């Protein structure tokens, strides 16, 4: 198997359509290919680089964003799937003044290199929106799609528990 061929079969479908969607509350209309990855659109067209790419196959969660409030991997979502929808990225979180999750991560050492952090925080956002006082099992389930190689998850767990205790 050839690495270069296998990894990126160049799409023959190069026709573009006008994608219309909200990113962090702001409307964007962009000419893109229907199969373009949401993560590339965010990083390259909307110039929001807080959303990261690490595995590119939906396993690590570094590209996690909320799509109409649902946690998704932006590397697995294609342009046509977000048309008319609303995306929340890390840059949009806390702009309303509520930075509780981010504060909790800061004070509990919930990150080190920070590369998983955007996605991890979005996953925590999805968790606490649904379950304000998560149990150990809730935390495990909600964050299982987000890998962190630095912290060993200790600081992340403490950050979520701090949120649950209202200490942020």
């Amino acid at each position, binding site marked *: 198997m*050839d*690495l*270069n*061929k296998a*990894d*990126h079969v*160049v*799409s023959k479908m190069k026709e573009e359509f006008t994608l219309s969607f909200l990113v962090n509350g702001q409307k964007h209309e962009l000419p893109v290919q229907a199969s373009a990855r949401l993560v590339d659109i965010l*990083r390259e067209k909307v110039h*929001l*680089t*807080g*959303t*990261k790419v*690490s*595995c*590119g*196959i939906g*396993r*690590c969660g*570094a590209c996690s964003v909320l799509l109409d409030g649902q946690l998704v991997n932006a590397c697995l979502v294609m342009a046509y799937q977000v048309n008319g929808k609303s995306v929340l*990225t*890390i*840059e949009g979180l*806390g702009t309303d003044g509520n930075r509780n999750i*981010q504060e909790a*991560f*800061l*004070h*509990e*050492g*919930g*990150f*080190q*290199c*920070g*590369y*998983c*952090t*955007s996605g991890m*925080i979005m996953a925590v956002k999805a968790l606490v929106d649904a379950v304000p006082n998560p149990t*150990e099992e809730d*935390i*495990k*389930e909600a*964050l*299982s799609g*987000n*890998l*962190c*190689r*630095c*912290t*060993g*998850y*200790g*600081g*992340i*767990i*403490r950050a979520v528990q701090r949120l649950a205790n209202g200490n942020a």
Partner: protein
Amino acid sequence: MKFNISEREGRVRPDGMAKVTGDLKYLTDLTFPNMLHGKILRSSYPHANIVSIKTERAEQLPGVAVVITHKDVPGMNRFGIIFPDQPVFCEDKVRYMGDAIAAVAAESEAIAYEALALIEVVYEELPVIDDPKKALAKDAPKLHPSGNILHRATFKNGDVSKAFDDCFTVVEETYELPRQMHAYLETEGGVIVPKEDGSITVYAGTQHGFKDRFQLARILAKPEHEIRIISSPMGGSFGGKDELNIQPYGAILALVTGRPVKVHHTRKESVWAGLKRHPMRITMKTGASKTGKIVAHEVRIIADTGAYATLGPAVLDFAVEHASGPYIIPNIDIEGLSVFTNNGVSGEFRGFGGNQITFALEGQINRLAEALGIDPIELRRKNIRKATDKGPLGQRIAPSNGALEVLESINALCMKQKEKQKQEPCSKWKRKGTGMALAMHGGGLGFGRLDSAGGRLALNHEGKIEIAFGFEECGQGLLAVIENIVIKEIGCSQNDLKIVIGDTALVPVSGSSTASRGTSIVWQSVQRMKEPFTQKICKRVSQLLSIPENELILGENGLWRVNGKHPCMTYKQLAQEMKDGSPLVVYTNFHFPTTPDAVIGGHYLYTFGGVKVEVEVDLLTGKVKVTDLDHVIAAGPVISPNGYRGQIEGGGVMSLGYTLMEEAKMEGGRYVTENFDTYLIPGIADIPFHTNVQAIEALYKDDSHGPRGVGEIGTIAITPAIVNAIHDAIGHWVQHLPVSSEEILEAIEVRRMLEWT
């Protein structure tokens, strides 16, 4: 989840806010006007002659700016931190799947990939040497002109064979350790920007900017001053970005096209080309007297170093050095070989050979304890080094009682655990076990190696106290360490401080951000600079305000008169005053503390760590789960509590993965696993929610070396401790990592541990 030290003053790390808001620009996030995208063509075979390379079709593809091969390397077509034996581009031969043949710069990544597919390379396949055993066979083809042995390292003391004859018990075992992937979340990448004057700026993560500059100067045939390396921040490294990766390709493409070029590996490209932890096969024979005095230790190490050298020799030296760990053994015979193969390149990885050798050593100690019928902690107590004993290579080292202190703390934790376990009901399908292990780890590069350290402290023109080091922030928390040390030692506040790192144009030489050396060097540098800096600044203010020097102190926002209610001169005012005068700046330059004894690679400053762990073995699935984890670390004072704890917890979990889950398996010189769908690193459900880190902060009396780095020590003892706990649970000794469920199930069946068997 406890820790015996809490974060001081609620300070958060300097890079924290930018990280939690997504604002921080990593070097792979950068774009520049007129930027091209670079991609690298890697080998199609693990071992082959190159018959021909044709690039014409790729060059003709619209949107392709240039295609380069070995013919386009202006200077030395080789890299490697110590032994430059790895081709930037292969000329006539490939030795592993990560070898580069050509590179393309194009208007988009998609076009670059399309162009790679149009490059025609004709190979002539050669026999693949995919195991060190094959490489060492007499008739094996030579992978390099000097043969297939990269490095041989030995240490001998006393008379081992005679000592074994007198032993009451001897245990012998072979331990096999897998290839581990660093799995930093940010893959290798960055942007190289050329200027009209022929100079370039390289924005790409590395653990030693000046070393990259040195290597690139050789490759590009350029003076070093025409190369600027911006090497920080990084989304993780763990040793893996220490060696050059994409930099030479990006740099040549940028110079040839005159345009900025971005190269960013996909995960698969990263797996193929990147470094890994050395797979090792370690045979140990260890003998003790009836009373439990260990008297003889024979060790043979075979390391699979892959196709090229990088720091393979130093990793082997480190393993040899740590083969007796914190124990005093009078008769020793250690020999290690680092062997070339057609596998992926093994090299720098957090723990640096210590993980492999300590797994074997601690396994031996536990097996000996069992064979002798002596409690494993008591056996360790009988053989453990005393504070002023010499180091493991017979060299003088900085005295430390850390080994015994850690052992006694672990002992107390084990006693508590046993009490707890007694009270817990035993499940029919699950067995619990407790295990422990110790580790000793040298910091710095070791005797005989250039290990320059230094820093700069200044009052800059903005009125900030500016501290500069030639270090990188990989995530380890170096910025917080710098901030905490400077604030404490100088007396200024967080707002008064500017930290400069990771840019060869702006920083002094500090050496590499590796080998658990950063914290040591920052502390020692500030100790050296604080007096002259304070004196200089006080003298100037004394002259300006006619206040006696000895009545002035540095504090928040400026200089204060003793007992003053506010600063008598702010740093800003002082900067204004000296706008036209000579700057207030001090430098320091020194060598990392080294043993006075000429033992190549021998260390001087050591840290100690211990782990107590509880596992649960599922008798039906053979799965092992770590349910409780305690670390005890003796590494001097804690500088940055969240950082310290994070390094130990994170390092521990990285090695939990190494022990139970991770293997970058290769078959016939090809990776079987290429991404996180098959290479599994621990997720949040794989780790114990109950983790404690206990720091022993006291240093030996009169120790003047200050806090030690803790980037590696938390990764080592956990592996043998887990294996020890598995033995406690089911009576089976694992000697091959990662622990396989099949092996555990077989052990359970052999022992008839299930009701129906």
